[in-house]
C-alpha cells in the first residue's frame, strides 16, 4: 500500500499546488464504497486525459463524451469492479483478450485486470470497491506503465 501511495504522490507532485488529486485521493481512502466520480477523476488524471485542476464532474462529463458502450456515467457510490476496470482499460489503452476485443465491456475488462495482476480475488463485475482498492489498482497500473517506459 505504501509503495502505491508513493507512486501516486510522485505522479501528482507537480500538481501539489492545486492539491486536487491529493485531496480526492485522501477522500477516497476513507470511503468503504468508493465514489465513482472520484474514481473516474483519479483515473483520468493519472492517464493524463483531463487537466490536474479539473473537477470530478468534469471527469464524468468526459466519460459521457467518450461514449464507451456499456460504460456507467452516473456519479456516487458504489464503484463496481466491472465499470472501474473498463474505465481503466479504455483510459490507458490497454489491450485485452479475444473476448474483450469481440465484446468490450465491464465483464472482460475485470478478467483482464486480474490476468495482468492489477486486481486479485473475485472478478465479478458487481464486486464493490473501496477507496483503498481504487487507489491500489491505479497505483499498480501506473507502475506497469512506468515499467513499459
Amino acid at each position: 500500500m505504501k509503495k502505491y501511495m508513493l507512486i501516486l504522490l510522485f505522479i501528482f507532485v507537480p500538481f501539489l499546488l492545486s492539491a486536487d488529486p491529493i485531496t480526492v485521493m485522501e477522500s477516497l481512502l476513507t470511503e468503504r464504497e468508493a465514489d465513482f466520480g472520484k474514481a473516474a477523476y483519479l483515473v483520468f488524471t493519472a492517464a493524463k486525459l483531463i487537466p490536474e485542476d479539473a473537477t470530478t464532474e468534469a471527469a464524468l462529463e468526459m466519460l459521457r463524451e467518450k461514449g464507451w458502450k456499456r460504460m456507467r456515467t452516473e456519479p456516487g457510490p458504489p464503484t463496481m469492479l466491472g465499470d472501474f476496470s473498463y474505465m481503466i482499460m479504455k483510459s490507458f489503452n490497454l489491450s485485452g483478450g479475444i473476448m474483450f476485443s469481440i465484446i468490450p465491456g465491464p465483464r472482460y475488462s475485470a478478467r483482464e485486470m486480474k490476468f495482468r495482476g492489477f486486481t486479485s480475488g473475485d472478478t465479478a463485475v458487481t464486486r464493490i470497491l473501496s477507496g483503498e482498492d481504487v487507489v491500489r489498482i491505479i497505483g499498480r497500473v501506473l507502475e506497469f506503465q512506468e515499467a513499459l517506459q
Partner: protein
Amino acid sequence: MKANRLFLIPFLFLCAVMALPALDGGGTIDNLSALDIETQTGFRQIDRLTLWADTSIGESFYTRVQGSYTFSLNKPYLFDLERLLFRGSFLLGGNSRLLLGFTAGRFFVEDFSGQVLSHTLDGIRVNLDIPLFKSSLFFGSSALLFNDPSRIVMTRHDAADKSDSARILASPRLIGMVNLRFIDLFLQQDLSVSYLMQIDLRADSELTDQTAGGKLNSHYFGVGLGGALIPDLFWDSFGYFSIGSTLANIGGSYAYSTILSWTAGAGIRWYPEKKLYSRLLFRGIFTSGDADNATFLEGNTFGNSTLFVPIAAREMDTVFSPQSGNLIIAELHYALKPLAPLGGIGGQFQTELMGYLFLRPTQGGISESYNTASQSYYVGTEIDLALRFRPASDLGLSLTGGVFIPNNSSGGVFLSTQKSLTTSIKLSASFSF
C-alpha cells in the same frame, strides 16, 4: 445431440449471463490431441466444454454452479457436475480479525500436501481463520460423484468399477479432514498439521466373493513445514503416517490386516526471475511399499500391510503415471521465458524441461504390470519438454513431448513385453469466455 446444436449452448449461455448483471458466468473450451507411441501408436482426442455461473447474495454469501461436457474418441458423451456450492463468510470480533466461513455442496478438497487427498467431493467445510492461523474441518462423501471422472481407486472393487462402463456412481466413501496451519510460526516458516479419515461405504452385498476384494478403511496423520529460506528460494516438506484395515490373503485364507504405512516428501523452489523469469524446482516423494504383496491393491500376504494407499493423490501429468504406493519419485524442473527480453507477446512464451527418476523402495508391486521375479529397485526415467504460449489472456496453447525409459533390461522391474520405451506428444489449447 447434433454438433451444431452443441455449439449453440455456450453462445446462448453467454447471452443469458450477460443479460443478468447480478450473475457472473463464463466457460472454457479445452482441446487435447495426443499421440502415444509404445509398441503401437495410439491417438487421443479430448474436447471439453465447461460452463460456470456464480452470484453473490449480499456481502456474506456466494453460490457457484459448474458443469462440463467431455467428448473423447472412447466416450463421445460424458457429462459431469463439477461444482455446486453455497459459501458464506463472516468477519467477527473487534477489528474483524476473526473470519468464520463455510462451504456446502460439491467442491474441490485437498490436504496441504496434495499427496493424500486432491479431489472433488460432496460435503461441508467450516473454516475459522485469524491472523497467522487457519483451520478447517471437512466432512463429506464421494458416493454421488460420477464414476468416470472419479480418481478414487483404493481396492480391487474400485479398480473393477473403473473398467465397468455400466457403473454410474463412483466408489462410495465417507471422508473427513481437519487442517491446521500456523503461518509464519518462526523464521517465515508455516507449520501444517492434518488428520484425514475415509470409511469404505461399499455395500456388503457386493463383497460376498473375497477373491474379488474387500473394504479398505484408513486414517492419515500428517505434518508439514515450509516457507521462505532466502528471497526467491522456498522449500516445503511433509510426512504422513497411515493406519487402517485392508483385506489380506494370509496363508491362503482371507482376513483383514492392519495398514501401517507412510509417505513423505520435500522440495525446493527457486525463482531467479531476473534470469529470463526462471523457475527451478527439485522435489522428492516417498510412498512406502510392501514386499510381500501378491497384487498391488489388497495384496498383503504376510503381517501388516505397509503399502501406502492415498484416497486420491494429486495427478501427475507425465507419460508414466503410476498410482502412489511403493514409489520414490525424484523430479527436477527448469522453466524460463526465453523471449522475455523482446517484450510484449514474447513474455508470454515459456519453455519447461522436466526430468523424473522413478524407484521403488521394496521389491513389491507397483500399480503397473511388472516383473514379479525382479529384484531391481530402479523403475525408470522420464524426460519431458513443454512449450507454452499465451497469446491472449483467454487463450493458452501448449505443446508437450515426453519419453519414458523403463527398466526393462534383464532382471529389470518390467519385462520387455510389459513396458517398452514410451513417447507421448500432446498439443493442447484452452479458450475462456
